[in-house]
C-alpha cells in the first residue's frame, strides 16, 4: 500500500508518520507538498499533526482550503483512504471532509498526555482488525481538540456508526475524567459515511514502537493494510 504524508507549512508530525510507515511498517511512503493536487500514485493520504499555517485564525482553517486538500475530495471519491491525526483531523473538519469541528480544549490549556481510546466501530478499513470495546493507548498533544457537532449531526454520526473512538479509562469506561479536552460525548475519532476518511486527535505514530510506550497505533495501520492488501497480514478479529 502506498502512503503519502502531506506537508503543510507548519506541519511537524510528517517525519514521524513517514518514519513509522517506512521503518516500522515497511510500506512505500512519500511526502506530498501542500500545493500538489496530484494524488494518483498513493492509496492512503496521511494528514499529520502540527500547526499548519500556525493554526492562526482557527486550527486547520487555512490548510483546509489548500490545493492538496481540495484534491482530496476526488481522491476519496475514487476510493482513496485518508487518515488525519491531530492537526490533520482539524483540517479534515475545516475542509468539510468530516462533520463537526474542533474547538479549544475545555481546560483552555494545551494538553500532551497519554490517553485511552475505546473502539466503537470495527466496520471501517481503519478498525477492521480491532474488537468493539477494545482499548487502545495513544498520546494526545493539542490545544484545540474538543470535538463539537450540533445535535442533529451527532445523531447522524451515532446512527451511521461514524464515531470510531471515544476517550475512556484504561478499562474502557467512558467517563468525564477520562475525557482530556471536553469533547462532546468523549469523541476522539470519527469517519466519513463511507468509512474511508478517519480523523482522530490522538497520535497513532507516537504509539508505534515498544520504546514509545505503546504499539496500539500500529493496529490502525495494520487494519488498513489488511483491508487493502490481499496477503492476509492483518490481525485476526
Amino acid at each position, binding site marked *: 500500500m502506498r502512503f503519502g504524508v502531506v506537508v503543510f*507549512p*507548519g506541519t*511537524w*508530525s510528517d*517525519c*514521524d508518520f513517514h*518514519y*513509522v510507515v517506512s521503518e516500522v511498517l515497511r510500506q512505500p511512503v512519500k511526502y506530498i507538498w501542500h500545493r500538489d493536487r496530484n494524488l494518483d500514485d498513493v492509496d492512503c493520504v496521511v494528514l499529520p*499533526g*502540527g*500547526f499548519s*499555517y*500556525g*493554526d*492562526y485564525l482557527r486550527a486547520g482553517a487555512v490548510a483546509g482550503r489548500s490545493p492538496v486538500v481540495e484534491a482530496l475530495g476526488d481522491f476519496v471519491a475514487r476510493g482513496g483512504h485518508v487518515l488525519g491525526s491531530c492537526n490533520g483531523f482539524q483540517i479534515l473538519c475545516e475542509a468539510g471532509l468530516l462533520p463537526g469541528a474542533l474547538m479549544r480544549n475545555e481546560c483552555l*490549556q*494545551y*494538553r*500532551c*498526555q497519554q490517553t485511552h481510546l475505546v473502539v466503537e466501530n470495527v466496520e471501517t478499513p481503519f478498525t477492521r482488525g480491532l474488537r468493539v470495546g477494545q482499548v487502545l493507548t495513544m*498520546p494526545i*498533544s493539542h*490545544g484545540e481538540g474538543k470535538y463539537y457537532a450540533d445535535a442533529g449531526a451527532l445523531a447522524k454520526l451515532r446512527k451511521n456508526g461514524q464515531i470510531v473512538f471515544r476517550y475512556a479509562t484504561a478499562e474502557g469506561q467512558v467517563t468525564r475524567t477520562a475525557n482530556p479536552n471536553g469533547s462532546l460525548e468523549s469523541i476522539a475519532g470519527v469517519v466519513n459515511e463511507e468509512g474511508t476518511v478517519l480523523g482522530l486527535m490522538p*497520535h497513532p*505514530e*507516537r504509539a*508505534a*514502537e515498544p*520504546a*514509545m510506550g505503546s504499539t496500539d497505533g500500529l493496529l490502525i495501520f495494520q487494519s488498513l493494510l489488511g483491508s487493502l492488501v490481499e496477503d492476509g497480514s492483518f490481525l485476526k478479529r
Partner: protein
Amino acid sequence: MTGSEPKATPDLARELGLTADEYDRIIKRLGREPTYTELGLFSALWSEHCAYKHSRVFLARLPQTGPHVLQGPGENAGVVDIGDGWAVVFKIESHNHPSFIEPFQGAATGVGGILRDIFTMGARPIALLDSLRFGEPDDPKTRRLIEGVVSGISWYGNCFGCPTVGGEIAFAPEYAGNPLVNVMCVGLVRADRIFRARAEGVGNPVFYVGNKTGRDGIHGATMASSTFDERAEERRPTVQVGDPFTEKLLLEACLELMQTGAVVGIQDMGAAGLACCTSEMPARAGTGMEVELSRVPRREIEMTPYEILLSESQERMLLVVARGREEEVRRVFAKWELDAVEIGQVTGDGDLTVRHHGEIAARLPVKALAEAPRYEKPTAPPPWMAELRAFDPLTLPEPADYEEALLAVLGSPTIGSKEWAFRQYDQQVGINTLVLPGSDAAVLRVKGTRRALAISTDGNGRQVFLHPRRGAAMAVCEAARNVSCAGGRPLGVTDCLNFGSPERPEILWQFAEAIDGLAEACRALDLPVVGGNVSFYNETNGQAVLPTPIVGVVGVLEEAGRAATQWFKGAGHRLALLGPDAVSLGGSEYLWTLHRRLAGALAPLDLGLERRVQSAVQAAIGTELVLSAHDCAEGGLAVAVAEGCVTGRELVGGSVTLPEGARADLTLFGEGPSRVVVSVDPARVLEFEGLMAESAIPWCWIGTTGSERLRVRCGSTTVIDAAIESLEQAWRRGFERHLA
C-alpha cells in the same frame, strides 16, 4: 535622512549606556566623532549583553576543550561529537527581563531565540528544557507570571514542533521581582555538516531572510533623540512578539538551503539584531561587510538606519552565500514563503559599511565593534557570609511528627510534581523521547544508531548563595549525576549564570567564586563547557536574585534500550544508597519549608568520589544490574526514596532502615552531593555487590521495595510509616495546588 539625526555627544553616549571612558575610547579608536548610527552600533555591541564586559575575564577560567568538542564557546552554540558521525549542538539562554515585563511573549521569544542558535549551526532541534525560578507561588502576581511563562513556552515550542522534555521550576522569595526563565535547546547534526557564523569570501552576497523588521525591542534610548516629533508615540519601540510558525518555516528553509552547499556562513539576528550579525560575522572571518538598509524588508514606515540596525524583531537570519548561488537561496525561501533579500556583500576592507538609500550611515572597522572593553571590577565577599554559614540548623527543634514533615517537604512547590507545567508541553514530537519529563534526566534516542542522549538542567540558588564556589560545583555534579542516573555518560556542559549587578563587589564575588566552582567540577568530571550565557542585573530595588548558575549537561548512552528511570519498578527489590554519608541541613528544602530559613553550611564535596559514584551508576545501568536509579537532591534521602515510590505509573511502597546516630531530621532530609538510591533485582545482588566493591565507593543496603506503605526506621525507631497514596497526593498537589 541621516543628515537630520542628532550629533553624537558624551551625553547621548551616556543615555545609550556607554560610559565617558568608553566614549573616549571610541573616539580614539576612530580618530573622529562617531555618527549617531555608529554610536548606536557601539552602544549595542559594547553592551553587557553582547560583549560580556564584566564576565569575559572570569569565563576564561572555564575548561572549554576536550577530545569530543567540535565547537566550544564563541559560536551560536557548542558542538560535541557523539559518535557514528553525529554531533550534538546545545546551548542555554536566559530571557529573564523580557519575561518579567510580558511573561507570555518574553518566555516565548526566549524559546525562539535559543532554537535559532541551534539551527543556525545546521542542526535540527530535538529537545528543549526550561529552568524557571519564581517567587513564592501563593502570591497572585507570581501565579500570573508562572501561567504566562509556561503558556508562552508551551505555545512557542509546541507550534514550532520541538518537544520540551525537561527542566525545573523552583521558588524563593528572592525571585519575586526577578523571575528567571532559562531555556536550553539540543539539536542533532552530522558531525561534518556544521555551519558557523562567519562571513568568508570577499564578494559573497549577504542575504537577509525571515520575518520583516519592525521596531521591536530597540533600545529605549532612541526615545531620547531629538528626531522625535508628534508621531513619537507611533514610533515607540515595542515588546518583541514571537511567531513560532515563521520560525518553523525558517528552520526548514535554512536546513534545506544548507543541504545545497550554497551557505557559507549564517547567524541568527538575536540581541542587537542586524548590528550584531553584520559586525560579528566579518569580525570572526577577518573580513568586512557592506549592506544597504533600504533593501531590508520592513513592516513599518520611516524606520531610521539606527532602528533598522538595532531592531530585535524575531525569526530573522543573516546568510552569507557563495556568489553565483543566489537563485537557489531565493527558490528555497520562496518555497517556504519567506523573504530572502540580498542586502549587501562581504568585503575585504575590514569595515562594516552601512548605507541607507546609498548614503553612508555608518562606516566602522568591525574589529573596533568586536573589541569591547573588558573589565575586572573589584570583588568582595559579602560581610554576612560567615555568620550565615555559621548557623547550625540542629539548634532548631526536632519535628514532632516526621510523617508530617515528609509530607510538607514532598509537597513543597519546589519538590512537588511539575506535571501542571509539562503536560502543556509537547514532549514527544520527533518520536525520540524515551524518558519523558518526570525522571532525573530526559532520554532521547538518536535514530539510525543504537545510542541515546540523556539531558538534564540543574541549579540550586540556595546552595550557591551560601557557598558560591561549592554550590556551583554541586550544580555541575548534580546535572551530571542526573545524566548518569539515566545511564548516560556526561559529555559536555552549557551554563546560564543568573546574578545581580556585577557592579556590586559582593555580587561579582559570588560570580567569580561560582565560576571557579564550575571550573573545578567540570575539570574533575572531564566536562568541557562548550557554551553558555551570562545574565547580570537580575535585581530590583537592590534585591538581587539568589546567585543561580543553571547547568545543562548532555550525555550519551551506548544502548538506548538500557535507559534507567528514577521510580521503583515493583515489589521485592533491594534498595541501596551509593555515596557518602555526609549531609547537611544548611540551605536545605527542609530548613526552608519547615522553618523558612536560608542559612547553614553545605555538606562537603569530594569531586573524586563524585566521579566514582557516577561511573559506578553508569556501569550498573549499562549492565542492567539496577532497575531504577535516583539522585538525592532537594529534600534529601527521604524525598529520594518517597519519589521512588510515587513518581512512576504504579505506586510502590518500601521499607528502609537507616543508621541511628545523627538526629533523624538530618538523616532524612539532609542534603549532600554524590548520593544515589538504586533498586536491585534480588537475583543479581551478588553481581551488584561485586561491581560496588570494584568501584571503590561507600555504599550500603538500606531496604526493600514493596507493600502499600513507606516505612522508614532510624536504627530501631520507626520515624515514618505513611500510606503511599498520601505521599503521592502531597507530591502531586504540591505545586499545582497553588495555581488553579
